[in-house]
């Protein structure tokens, strides 16, 4: 019986099968594309202050403010199936209790858009990014090779607090670069330190160990020194 309904069902079934197979092939193609990420991250300055780290903080607590230099070459993370790379820097520091593993917190993040992604306000524009609306060949080159950053004395986006309320005088703090590759379809992947197939582990991307200093009095610190960088996040105020 070849009614219209049966024909429509067959056509739709075939469409979904083909769409699924193509999507699966695209998702798998990323794993055979070599990756050779490298990065260099340096601590520039660290201060610990007592106060309200955010506008929505309810209590005063100690917080650390970390400035850093960052140079990255992550251009090999951008394949045809990459929508964006969520790049972040974590500060990892030992816990006060010996039984607990180290705590970590993101101090800065950036959404590096792939050239194939449509514009979005949250996407990061590195300092000196040329205006893409101009048909400048240099600008086109910068868009063609995303993932290359050179940041000097960068302010953090987030200050670090600890649930104990105390972060001063901790030792063995380390800054590490991390990322999450967001595909158009398929598996999400994260930064790896060791080689995995044709993907090389991240070269560099970790600072020397350093310590958080003692608490500085707020009045003695220039307010500008504690400023944070603002991202493009659309939802201000109450999170949704």
């Amino acid at each position: 019986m070849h009614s219209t309904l049966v024909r429509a069902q067959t056509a739709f079934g075939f469409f979904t099968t083909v769409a699924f197979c193509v999507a699966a092939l695209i998702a798998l193609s990323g794993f055979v594309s070599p990756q050779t990420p490298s990065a260099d991250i340096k601590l520039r300055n660290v201060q610990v202050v007592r106060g309200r780290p955010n506008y929505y903080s309810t209590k005063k607590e100690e917080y650390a403010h970390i400035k850093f230099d960052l140079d990255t070459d992550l251009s090999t993370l951008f394949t045809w199936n990459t929508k964006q790379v969520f790049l972040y820097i974590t500060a990892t520091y030992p816990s006060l209790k010996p039984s607990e593993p180290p705590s970590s917190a993101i101090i800065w993040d950036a959404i590096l858009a792939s050239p194939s992604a449509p514009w979005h306000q949250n996407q990061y524009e590195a300092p000196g990014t040329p205006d893409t609306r101009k048909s400048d060949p240099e600008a086109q080159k910068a868009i063609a090779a995303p993932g290359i950053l050179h940041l000097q004395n960068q302010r953090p986006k987030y200050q670090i607090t600890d649930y104990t309320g105390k972060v001063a005088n901790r030792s063995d703090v380390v800054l590490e670069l991390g990322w999450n590759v967001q595909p158009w379809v398929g598996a999400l992947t994260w930064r790896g330190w060791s080689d995995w197939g044709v993907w090389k582990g991240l070269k560099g991307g970790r600072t020397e160990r350093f310590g958080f200093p003692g608490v500085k009095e707020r009045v003695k610190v220039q307010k500008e020194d504690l400023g944070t960088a603002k991202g493009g996040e659309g939802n201000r105020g109450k999170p949704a």
Partner: protein
Amino acid sequence: MLNLSSLQPRQLAAQILNFALVLSTAFMLWKGLSVATDSPSPIVVVLSGSMEPAFQRGDLLFLWNRGQDTQVGEVVVYNVRGKDIPIVHRVVRRFGGGTGPLRLLTKGDNNAADDTELYARGQSFLNRQEDVIGSVVGYIPFVGYVTILLSEYPWLKTVMLGLMGLTVVLQRE
């Protein structure tokens, strides 16, 4: 032409059984996936735009809940205590762990502030074991949008179930 009364009773019973088989197979697949991933809800649909541009409303996410040592930068799905709405946000801090509970702080990529205000009253961190139902490992865009339509227009559910039932019952080899 297609008339229920024209069906033999035996044929009708077979068709109903067939329909029941389709439903139970789907249910078994879902529960099987749930056991394999150790998550009560291994596939979720993104309901809000708070993770844009990574995830949009209607995108389908696959979760994995084996491996409780969640790291900063992972995207987790959690339920706020007392509310049954799954929220997909990124882990921005982690404390504790080891012998005690691992505590996480999350934030949406599209939110300027972290989720402290979103949590239950008096709660300022998530408990990895109790609150989180999985970590996102896979992504398919848009195909979950139909479930958003179904929850926003409940009459569509009735229409869809009716159509499904009709096609299965009325299908003749």
